């Protein structure tokens, strides 16, 4: 046994350790609150109904951010609509149709790896594949599909965990009452897992809304109101990036950031509320 040299009386060491750990925890939460405070203090004053509902004019230095809100909704919407069925399908396969083995390990490793790919790489891939090779151009479609790949691992993982959390007895009961395996999954397991699955989707939405690098390469930076899936659009985070990097307008940049931060906070609160409800249900 190696023991640390005793500098302090154990009782004092205990107090010191507690204080240090408490300070570290406080620092973590403190940084979060400071960032939120920093952004909101500079931005919130410029956010009003007009800012949310007016079109941006003169590169965004005047007017609001309406078209970027719409653009964010469209790109995120495409991403989630594409990723949810694929992710849910993969999760159902992993949780219900395979035994733990080489295949599930490979799939899970693949999904985890996908989750750790830097988003700018997704952006470059999306640009090369959707924008140029498939000729979708800078568009909502290209950006949405790129985001779909990016949030896929989150949706797979949370959905799989949600499905696995459903007691095995529910499946037995359904089968014993004349349900097929598929009917048991659709009518009993999925409804029970729904809050957990929804949590994964909401986290995916959050990630899509906040993503910059992957969409700037794939959806472009157009400030015009998009009218089809093939129109270029600018999301809120790309708008913030452009306003800042090109020194267009600091107040407008922080106002956009404030809207973005509040949106993400609301999304996360919703996700955690759902997750809590879900875990309580099976305890």
């Amino acid at each position, binding site marked *: 046994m190696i023991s640390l040299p005793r500098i302090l009386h154990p009782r004092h060491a205990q107090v010191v350790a507690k204080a240090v750990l408490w300070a570290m925890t406080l620092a973590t939460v403190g940084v979060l609150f400071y960032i939120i405070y920093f952004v909101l203090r500079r931005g919130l004053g410029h956010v009003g109904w007009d800012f949310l509902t007016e079109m941006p004019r003169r590169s965004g230095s005047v007017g609001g951010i309406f078209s970027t809100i719409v653009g964010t909704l469209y790109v995120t919407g495409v991403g989630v609509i594409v990723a949810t069925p694929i992710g849910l399908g993969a999760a159902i396969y992993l949780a219900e149709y395979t035994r733990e083995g080489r295949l599930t390990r490979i799939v899970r490793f693949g999904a985890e790896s996908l989750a750790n790919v830097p988003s700018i790489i997704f952006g470059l891939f999306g640009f090369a594949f959707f924008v140029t090779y498939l000729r979708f151009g800078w568009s909502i479609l290209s950006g949405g599909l790129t985001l779909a790949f990016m949030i896929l691992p989150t949706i797979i993982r949370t959905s799989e965990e949600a499905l696995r959390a459903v007691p095995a007895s529910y499946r037995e*009961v359904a089968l*014993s009452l*004349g349900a097929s395996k598929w009917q048991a999954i659709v009518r009993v397991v999925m409804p029970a897992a729904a809050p957990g699955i929804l949590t994964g989707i909401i986290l995916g939405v959050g990630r899509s809304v906040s993503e910059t690098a992957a969409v700037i390469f794939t959806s472009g930076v157009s400030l015009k109101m998009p009218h089809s899936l093939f129109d270029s659009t600018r999301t809120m985070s790309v708008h913030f990036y452009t306003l800042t990097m090109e020194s267009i307008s600091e107040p407008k940049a922080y106002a956009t950031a404030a809207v973005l931060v509040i949106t993400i906070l609301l999304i996360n609160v919703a996700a955690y509320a759902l997750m809590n409800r879900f875990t309580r249900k099976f305890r």
Partner: protein
Amino acid sequence: MSGDSGTYALVKIAARDVEIRYRGKVALKPATFDIRTSTIHSIIGPAGSGKTSFLRSLNLMSIELDGAAIKGSIKVDEEEILTIRGAEKLAKLRRRIGIVFATPQPLPRSIYENIAFGPRIAGTKKKADLDALVEESLRSAHMWDEVKDRLDLMGTSLSGGQQQRLCLARTLALKPDIVLLDEPCSALDPISTYKIEQSMQELKGNVTFVLVTNNTKQAARVADRTAFFLMGELVEDGPTSKIFTRPNDQRTGDYIEGRFG
């Protein structure tokens, strides 16, 4: 329900040399006995005797869910069931042979929806038909008067005893001609236990019950015939009164009198 037209089928379930293994390990050595139509047949024995394995083999859940390999033959109404495969045929079998599990397992939905679950999947869609089934099943399980005004209450919010009677009602809603019960009263209060036993007695005209129980007194109270399983072996099977008073095998008497197990 089944083909009882004309001839009275005395034997409902005929087990011949039924051997059950899990990954090579024997859970039940070749067992042969009959379960008669419209009787309550109890299976008693200590833990690990193979009685639940046998019960779960009667609706093939042991094969599908537990990975059991079964040799021998189990005939229900003279038809072999061990060769049944495929979702549709399994579903049909399980509508005929219902099961109530040891711990009450209501699904997280209303009392009404718990009971309507099986019939809906079987294709009953009309509200009036479902309403009638729900009422009839709850009456059979001696529960109707307790819950008739709150059928939309979550099944999971009932007391343990009520939950188990709900599960019995849910099984009965499919109009099975065999009901398997896997230690259904092991976690219940005496009143709920009494009501379930009463239901079995009343229903056995139309339903054959196979009751696995740890409680020898329960077997003595309700069963017409009793089989004694011990360490994966069918020791003996016979009329309950004989098993409990003049067993053929020394071990049966020892178990019943509580000398082991």
